[in-house]
């Protein structure tokens, strides 16, 4: 039996048994939703419907309904795309990278973080889809002969790399998530009393019975999938950043983009995990599993990645000056002091200054403060993408074609719609899926549970 040092914080609080974990994880699925859930769900559904309306309007009328012009020909669509993909990264980081590093605290948050990954990648994938204009021609991104003639897709293009990266990322995350869900669905199936519910979870659980050989394969498969998902998640935002970095636009054409984008993605993803889990632990009474020390760990990651992002911003400025390229210098001067100075300031404040508060133990263990910072970071990271994209485009080489971008109601509507869609999916998930990977969590009860740790310290175990 493996024991953990007593100076480590327990990961499961209270006097829990295996059965308590089962009951408490199954509870949100087995009980009726409360008023707060219905309120949030209705709100999210209305936002989603508004977004659907705006998307239909875009498809019916054309991209002209957006605020784009011929100078700023990429704005909120790509901003939102990068923002949502970035948010997804924390889920994979928690479930894959922390698995490889044997960080046991991932176990009570990985299920929800991965759900967040999948739902946010769905939002991200919407944007390139509708920006094609003719959505029904979407199959053109697949490696099939163009016009069904003999011209193929262009494998030299980062946009095509992106198609491969995002679809691999989405589908691999989905199966990784599902492999872990099957034993937990089986637990719900075996407890279900309502025959319809029992039947649904029977289908979802694939007949899982927890046989020894199956668990052996399960653990091996999880390890290999984690090993695959780790470089995969780093590759996804690297390739997203290449959409910009391989172009010759001043402000985009920088080699620092891949690591800088990945750090930013992890940063914003953890902020979103905090936003979601602080609510989930409260509403579903999961405080014993998602503890203050879990929140603190995530805050430390936010602090570290936020600081990496800060260093990247400053490096970018320095290199722009040091390069001696006047176009590059102007792009950054314009970014910080031009008409979009307020977006740049918002980005700097939210992403570089706000995570520094987490150096204080008191602040990073405060749930209210964490929730506040998590929202700030998400806003900041949206502005980062907006700043990179719009400020680099709006003043190009010809001053006569300089322009500004202002979003139309359709731009705003689609963005709000994806937030609504995301929360619709997430709220449905919290009521029908086990929000904590209970089978995995049970494996650490004896080593990291509060009651067992106490017994061990008193020499009784």
């Amino acid at each position, binding site marked *: 039996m493996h024991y953990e040092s007593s100076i480590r914080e327990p990961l499961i609080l209270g006097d829990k048994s295996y059965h308590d974990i*089962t009951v408490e994880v199954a509870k949100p699925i087995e009980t009726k939703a409360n008023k707060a859930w219905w309120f949030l769900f209705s709100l999210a559904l209305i936002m989603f419907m508004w977004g659907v309306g705006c998307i239909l309007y875009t498809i019916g009328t054309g991209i002209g309904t957006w605020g784009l012009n011929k100078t700023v020909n990429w704005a909120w669509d790509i901003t939102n795309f990068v923002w949502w993909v970035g948010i997804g990264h924390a889920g994979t980081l928690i479930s894959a990278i922390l698995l490889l590093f044997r960080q046991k605290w991932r176990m009570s948050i990985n299920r929800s973080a991965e759900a967040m990954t999948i739902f946010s990648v769905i939002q991200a994938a919407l944007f390139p889809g509708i920006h094609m204009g003719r959505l029904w021609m979407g199959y053109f991104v697949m490696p099939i002969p163009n016009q069904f003639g003999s011209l193929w897709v262009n494998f030299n293009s980062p946009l095509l790399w992106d198609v491969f990266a995002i679809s691999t990322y989405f*589908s691999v995350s989905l199966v990784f998530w599902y492999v872990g869900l099957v034993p937990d669905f089986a637990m719900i199936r*075996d407890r279900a009393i309502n025959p319809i519910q029992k039947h649904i979870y029977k289908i*979802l659980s694939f007949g899982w019975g927890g046989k020894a050989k199956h668990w052996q394969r399960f653990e091996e498969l999880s390890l290999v999938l984690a090993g695959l998902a780790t470089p995969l998640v780093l590759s996804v935002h690297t390739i997203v950043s290449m959409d910009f970095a391989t172009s010759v636009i001043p402000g985009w054409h920088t080699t620092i983009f891949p690591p800088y984008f990945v750090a930013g993605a992890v940063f914003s993803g953890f902020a979103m995990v905090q936003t979601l889990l602080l609510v989930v632990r409260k509403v579903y009474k999961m405080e014993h599993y998602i503890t203050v020390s879990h929140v603190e760990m995530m805050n430390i990651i936010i602090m570290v990645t936020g600081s990496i992002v800060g260093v990247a911003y400053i490096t970018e400025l320095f290199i722009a000056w040091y390069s001696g390229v006047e176009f590059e210098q102007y792009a950054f001067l314009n970014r910080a002091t031009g008409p979009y100075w307020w977006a740049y300031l918002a980005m700097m404040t939210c992403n570089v200054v706000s995570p520094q508060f987490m150096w204080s133990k008191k602040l990073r263990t405060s749930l209210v403060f964490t929730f506040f910072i998590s929202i700030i970071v998400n806003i900041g990271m949206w502005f980062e993408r907006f700043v990179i994209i719009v400020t680099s485009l709006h003043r190009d080489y010809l001053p006569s074609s300089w322009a500004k971008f202002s979003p139309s109601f359709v731009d705003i509507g689609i963005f709000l719609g994806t937030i609504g869609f995301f929360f619709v999916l997430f709220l449905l998930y919290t009521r029908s899926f086990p929000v904590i990977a209970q089978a995995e969590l049970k494996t650490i009860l004896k080593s990291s549970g509060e009651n067992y740790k106490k017994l061990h310290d008193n020499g009784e175990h």
Partner: protein
Amino acid sequence: MANTDQRLVIRALYDDDDTILSAVKSIREKGHYIEEAYTPFPIHGLDKAMGLEPTRISIAGFMYGLTGLSFAIWMTWYMMIHDWPMNIGGKPNENWLQNMPAFVPIMFELTVFFTAHLMVWTYWAINGLYPGRKAMNPDPRTTDDKFMLEISADHDKDDLISLLKETGAIELKEEQIED
């Protein structure tokens, strides 16, 4: 014909993971054959204690990865070099190797795609798991907090029963199972 395939097994229920692990060891020492264990979560060392061979699923995964990589190389070569060569931004494309740096992301993604998906399909297939399958565990409590061993009892049933009681089993059940 009816009775030839039937075997007698004893299903012993335990309520602790450490107990079942030591039980497995002492049952095997006495020369009994453990047909199966049903547990709510993976117990480290249980597979070794039961004498299960290490899984070869990652070897399969490596093969799938090689398949994905080869497919990506063939696809980029066929589409970009052989069938319809395209000069994109002056990138050299006389042969595949010259153009290869631009294909690294595709080669990587397809390696991961093939490995992950084919491994997961293999996992479902060799475990015999599919949507709607009847639950494999005989007792629904084994996905909650109970642990079950299924031990072949064709020969010395009474010995086995007393041994199981010694190892801390909380419930014993005899069952005729068919293969």
